[in-house]
């Protein structure tokens, strides 16, 4: 444990910044000399092998000399290691001029004795061979240069030039072997450049002598787009990245892009950031997640850039920095167009928190773009990055390459906690819910803008296709671009399908009319009902009246009948009295009377 710590401390001293980052894993056994070239120290886990020669080989114009010069300049300026540059091809003036454009002041370094440039000129035509010789002169010259400034680093650019000066290859080979041995004994970290040969790494087989570390530079042109690539062919005694890494030479010198598998362990944030369109925030339940990746896909003219600009403005409004990588329009054009929908990006640009970078994708290869983005992001350190659109990169490689690039870009942004918004153009005939490069699986929030066509007009609809980790609306919204910015409206969804635009307005009017009609109808029905009820009531009253009359009549009849009955009874009594019937027997006596009378 203690020992490991010691090792770590030691490495911090010897290998500089990069070694700290990677711990001691790659450099426990070998001390390293950091190159200070962005990315290269990461690939080699700390730099070139300290005190040993390294061969940098490649075709003409691939950046060998520059890499050597950078190794020396960074060593002199950042790591306190003076360096000697033995130039066989360019004079001191030429070299100084060449690298001045990269911001390196070689003259100043030379004056401060941090750097010594020695131009060795070999003119074949002046030299005649007559007998045995060796290259002690070169050794002495190199030795005196190293001693003059106490150099720790040496660059020989390019030692192969001596092959043209001295015809006796056998002597040369022996001497080269001696030279590299001698450099090792001197304890200087040497860089030897060599021209790429046919089927071999270098034209004269330098790799035979320099076996500790070999870096191959390559400059390929594919479909008229050039890409520089770097590969660590061999690194004795150390682990190293084995892939081909793209590298870039620009105004800041060389930067290499380490294509590391970044893994999926980036921090996540549950903080929401506004999308710039309030109703969209509503649909997403509060906005995008910070550090998430957002894809806006849609056919041409559906308002992808407008939505992106809204986001840019929203980011800037909170005072955060936003990087807008445009690959279709110039910054001026974007700003003008966005002004027409009420977004003025100008002030943010002036304030320096919004940065545009517009570049035609066809200008570089994919790797270069990625590298450039890396550099821009690292330099500007934005909170959000907009890539508008990613579709244009497809012309630069096949789908797999583009996807790989985007994965790396998204991963890179995620590890940095930067919110990334990408737009992609889908073609009308393609599947609307497919992205042309199939990046959807990498995306956290995917918005689809789609033309809804009917009634001879196209209107925009916005769908939230997915949004990881947030409750989001599943409704389609109509997306309107007004002079005050983007607006989202509820769609008309009815029996006749989804309607937008004027069709929606017409449909709404139609609906209103229909509603009014229905209202009238109801009123009419209600009135009718009232009338019916009234009629019924009247009928009831009439019936009741009739009934009253009838019952009265019936009762009258009844009374009459009763009266007649009484009269009849009275008449019978009267009759009996008149017939003198037994009063006591009444009717019986009468019968008996009739019997008795017969008897």
């Amino acid at each position, binding site marked *: 444990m203690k020992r490991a710590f010691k090792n770590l401390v030691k490495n911090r001293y010897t290998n500089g910044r990069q070694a700290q980052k990677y711990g001691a894993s790659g450099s426990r056994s070998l001390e390293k000399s950091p190159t200070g070239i962005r990315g290269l120290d990461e690939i080699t886990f700390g730099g070139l092998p300290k005190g040993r020669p390294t061969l940098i080989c490649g075709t003409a114009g691939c950046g060998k000399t520059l890499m050597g010069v950078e190794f020396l300049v960074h060593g002199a300026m950042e790591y306190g290691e003076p360096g000697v540059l033995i130039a066989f091809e360019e004079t001191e003036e030429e070299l100084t001029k060449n690298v001045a454009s990269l911001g390196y002041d070689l003259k100043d370094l030379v004056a401060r004795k941090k750097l010594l440039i020695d131009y*060795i000129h*070999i003119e074949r035509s002046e030299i005649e061979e*007559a*007998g045995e*010789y060796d290259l*002690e002169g070169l050794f002495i*010259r190199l030795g*005196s240069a190293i001693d003059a400034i106490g150099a720790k680093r040496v660059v020989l650019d390019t030692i192969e030039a001596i092959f043209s000066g001295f015809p006796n290859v056998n002597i040369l080979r022996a001497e080269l072997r001696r030279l590299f041995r001698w450099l090792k004994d001197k304890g200087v970290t040497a860089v030897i450049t060599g021209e790429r040969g046919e089927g071999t790494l270098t034209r004269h087989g330098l790799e035979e002598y320099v076996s500790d570390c070999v870096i191959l530079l390559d400059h390929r042109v594919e479909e008229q787009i050039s890409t520089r690539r770097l590969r660590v062919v061999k690194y004795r005694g150390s682990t190293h990245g084995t892939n081909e890494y793209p590298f870039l030479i620009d105004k800041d010198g060389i930067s290499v892009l380490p294509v590391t598998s970044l893994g999926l362990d980036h921090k996540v944030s549950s903080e929401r950031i506004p999308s710039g369109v309030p109703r969209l925030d509503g649909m997403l339940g509060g906005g995008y997640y910070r550090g998430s990746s957002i894809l806006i896909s849609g056919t041409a003219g559906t308002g992808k850039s407008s939505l992106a600009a809204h986001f840019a403005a929203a980011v800037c409004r909170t005072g955060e920095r936003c990087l807008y990588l445009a690959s279709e329009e110039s910054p001026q054009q974007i700003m003008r167009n966005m002004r027409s929908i009420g977004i003025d990006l100008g002030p943010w640009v002036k304030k320096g928190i919004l940065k545009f970078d517009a570049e035609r994708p066809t200008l570089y290869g994919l790797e270069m773009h990625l590298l450039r983005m890396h550099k821009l992001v690292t330099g500007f350190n934005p909170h959000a990055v907009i890539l508008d659109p990613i579709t244009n990169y497809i012309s630069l490689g096949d789908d797999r390459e583009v996807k790989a690039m985007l994965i790396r870009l998204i991963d890179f942004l995620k590890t940095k906690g930067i919110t990334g918004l990408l737009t992609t153009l889908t073609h009308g005939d393609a599947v609307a819910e497919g992205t042309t490069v199939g990046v959807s699986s990498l995306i956290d929030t995917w918005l689809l803008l789609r033309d809804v066509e009917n009634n001879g007009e196209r209107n925009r609809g916005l769908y939230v296709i997915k949004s990881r980790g947030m409750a989001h609306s599943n409704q389609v919204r109509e997306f309107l671009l007004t002079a005050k910015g983007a607006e989202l409206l509820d769609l008309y969804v009815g029996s006749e399908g989804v309607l937008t635009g004027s069709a929606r307005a017409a449909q709404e009017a139609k609906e209103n009319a229909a509603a009014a009609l229905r209202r009238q109808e109801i009123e009419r029905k209600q009135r009718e009902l009232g009338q019916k009820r009234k009629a019924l009531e009247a009928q009831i009253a009439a019936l009741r009246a009739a009934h009253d009359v009838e019952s009265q009549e019936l009762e009258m009849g009844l009374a009459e009948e009763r009266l007649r009955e009484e009269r009849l009874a009275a008449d019978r009594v009267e009759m009996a009295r008149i017939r003198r019937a037994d009063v006591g027997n009444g009717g019986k006596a009468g019968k008996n009377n009739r019997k008795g009378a017969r008897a």
Partner: protein
Amino acid sequence: MNAAKRVKAVKPANDDPWVLRLYVAGQTPKSLTAFSNLKKICEEYLEDRYRIEVIDLLENPQLGRGDQILAIPTLVRNLPVPIKKIIGDLSNTEKVLVGLDIRQRVRS
């Protein structure tokens, strides 16, 4: 054409002394051989119209820069112009004579 050039190049040598510089690095066998070989050739072909400067780079490393000396030993003919360089221990007399343009002069 070739003859004319040759005459031109060699002519001043008839009057002017030859300045020859021999670069060495310490008293190595090769250096000593080179010096004795040079001496012999000069005595034979240039008589007393020559001057030999021996420069030891171990003592004065800076002096090697002007003549771009890498190989040791190297013989440089400073005068007459143009500058000629011959590397090696000068054991191949024929090559030295050709290299110094002496052979042609002798023949003519």
